[in-house]
């Protein structure tokens, strides 16, 4: 393993196999499952310095470093994880995984169903954030981690952090909830529903059995991603990046790509089709929609957070309208009412929801300051 400054270097994903059946919230169970995992840094002798990274809708276990020395792109959160970075791998043992239901090697719709010998496809059970957290707890058991020094995640990842703190209070010292929400808004669920309808209505979807037919519902998945991208960016960011510029000098008066933003969205959509599975996308959006810890606690977010004992850091971004600062404030308000320890930082930002992946100095500064203390506690 090479170790250049600021980078965890070349990393090799590991496959963890779980033979114990996992009971799921939908009523079904998985008799056997596998998780793809990457780890960075060293677990200390007390196993007290472990940090779990929870990924968002389209993330995976490759959070930092490179898979090969000549890789063009590092892991999805490489600007934040590494030696000397806010999530400092000189101090923490960092664990990142591809969630159950994913399409990057963990058991999901593209995996073979042991009962049929064929890919699960649409027969893969729908999952909840709680299902993920329980599968992650088994991974922690396997790694010998009784308590995470911190569980950290943005967006859908932040929902997993909240669930961890409520469902396994004794196993989380610090909960870092970034650009997240206590549950989806109706508007958010509406965006997810349009994305799902785009996929479900693609003639190549074949009721989810597209793999068996040798087809790919690429038009639907592409549309879903294009829609998603609009919601991840602020109006100002899109205006700054694309304006209303035509690609050529004059309008062509047809439906080809005429504007810069159309070109961008089509490119983003197409590249997503090449790396993501439609059934996984459907499943991930449903997990987002179902998340509601208040519902699980008799309708009260305060009651949900009374179960938690972690210290919290909640971070929101001023230009994020998909998971707006007001939603983070709801989390903070409930935590305060429940008497929990919490800090809240509002980051001045331009890009939108995607800012949680950006190395904004104010953002990384507060995260670094918080995690330095967390590292001192467990050193």
């Amino acid at each position, binding site marked *: 393993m090479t170790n250049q400054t600021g980078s965890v270097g070349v990393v090799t994903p590991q496959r963890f196999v779980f033979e114990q059946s996992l009971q799921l919230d939908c009523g079904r169970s998985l008799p056997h499952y596998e998780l793809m995992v990457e780890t960075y840094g060293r677990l200390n002798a007390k196993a007290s310095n472990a940090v779990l990274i929870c990924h968002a809708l389209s993330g995976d276990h490759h959070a930092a470093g490179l898979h090969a020395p000549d890789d063009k792109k590092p892991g999805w959160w490489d600007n934040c994880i590494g030696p000397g970075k806010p999530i400092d791998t000189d101090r923490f043992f960092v664990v990142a995984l591809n969630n159950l239901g994913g399409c990057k090697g963990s058991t999901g719709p593209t995996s073979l169903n042991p009962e049929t010998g064929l890919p699960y496809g649409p027969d893969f059970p729908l999952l909840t954030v709680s299902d993920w957290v329980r599968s992650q707890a088994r991974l922690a058991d396997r790694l010998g981690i009784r308590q995470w020094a911190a569980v950290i995640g943005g967006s859908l990842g932040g929902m997993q952090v909240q669930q961890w703190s409520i469902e396994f209070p004794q196993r989380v010292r610090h909960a870092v909830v970034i650009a997240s929400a206590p549950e989806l808004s109706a508007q958010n669920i509406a965006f997810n529903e349009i994305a799902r309808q785009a996929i479900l209505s693609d003639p190549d979807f074949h009721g989810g059995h597209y793999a068996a037919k040798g087809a790919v519902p690429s038009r639907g998945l592409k549309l879903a991603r294009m829609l998603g991208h609009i919601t991840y960016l602020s109006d100002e960011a899109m205006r700054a990046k694309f304006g209303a510029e035509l690609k050529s000098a004059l309008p062509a008066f047809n439906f080809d790509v005429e504007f810069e933003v159309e070109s961008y969205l089509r490119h983003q959509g197409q590249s997503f089709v090449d790396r993501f599975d439609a059934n996984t996308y459907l499943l991930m959006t449903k997990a987002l929609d179902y998340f509601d810890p208040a519902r699980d606690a008799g309708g009260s977010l305060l009651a949900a957070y009374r179960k938690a004992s972690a210290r919290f*850091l909640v971070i929101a971004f001023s230009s994020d309208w998909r998971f707006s600062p007001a939603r983070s*404030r709801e989390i*903070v*308000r409930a935590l*305060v*009412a429940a008497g929990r*320890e*919490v*800090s*809240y*930082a*509002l*980051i*001045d930002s331009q890009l939108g929801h995607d800012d949680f992946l950006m190395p904004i100095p*104010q953002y990384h*500064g*507060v995260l670094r*300051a*918080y995690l*330095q*203390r967390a590292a*001192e506690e467990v050193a």
Partner: protein
Amino acid sequence: MSTLSPLRADLAALSPWIPEGSRILDLGCGDGTLLAHLAATHKVRGYGLEIDPDNVRAAVARGINVIQADLDEGLSDFADGAFDVVVMSQALQALQRPDAVLAEMLRVGRTAIVTFPNFGHWRVRAALLAGRMPVTPSLPARWFDTPNIHLCTVADFEVLCQERGWKVSRRALLDRRHRGGLAIRLLPNLFCEQALYELRAG
């Protein structure tokens, strides 16, 4: 771990007013110095509110619970009577509506402790008599770049308390060395530079 640095004089003066083990909300907590001090000396628990991002980071680095917020937006995140004490030091005069924030402090706290510079001090009066806006040790900014938009005198503050039915349960009027004295006792509004008040809802 970090050692405690000496407290600013007005904070040192109000510290004895804080009951041991109380639940406290510090409005405009800065880098968290007061809360860190009170956590160590008085075993208080609570939160600081702060608008400046650099201060938020500094407070986080101290291990303080700090919530980034604009005091002028009120304290709607906090329930009635959620705190034993709500403290606001040297922020009153920079608020859009100081009276509204004071009312909010007395809603969420059983007591409110406020410190502010007295605009009735003789240095201020002398400057105005000479026809100039005052620039004093307590009010070092000039008229065009000052954050202080609602300055008041000790007498003004007490009239407001009376009008609103807020009870002054404690008061400390200090000179520039943050001490009391005969001159202040005789003519408080002329000689007090820093005022500390503890209020209760009527």
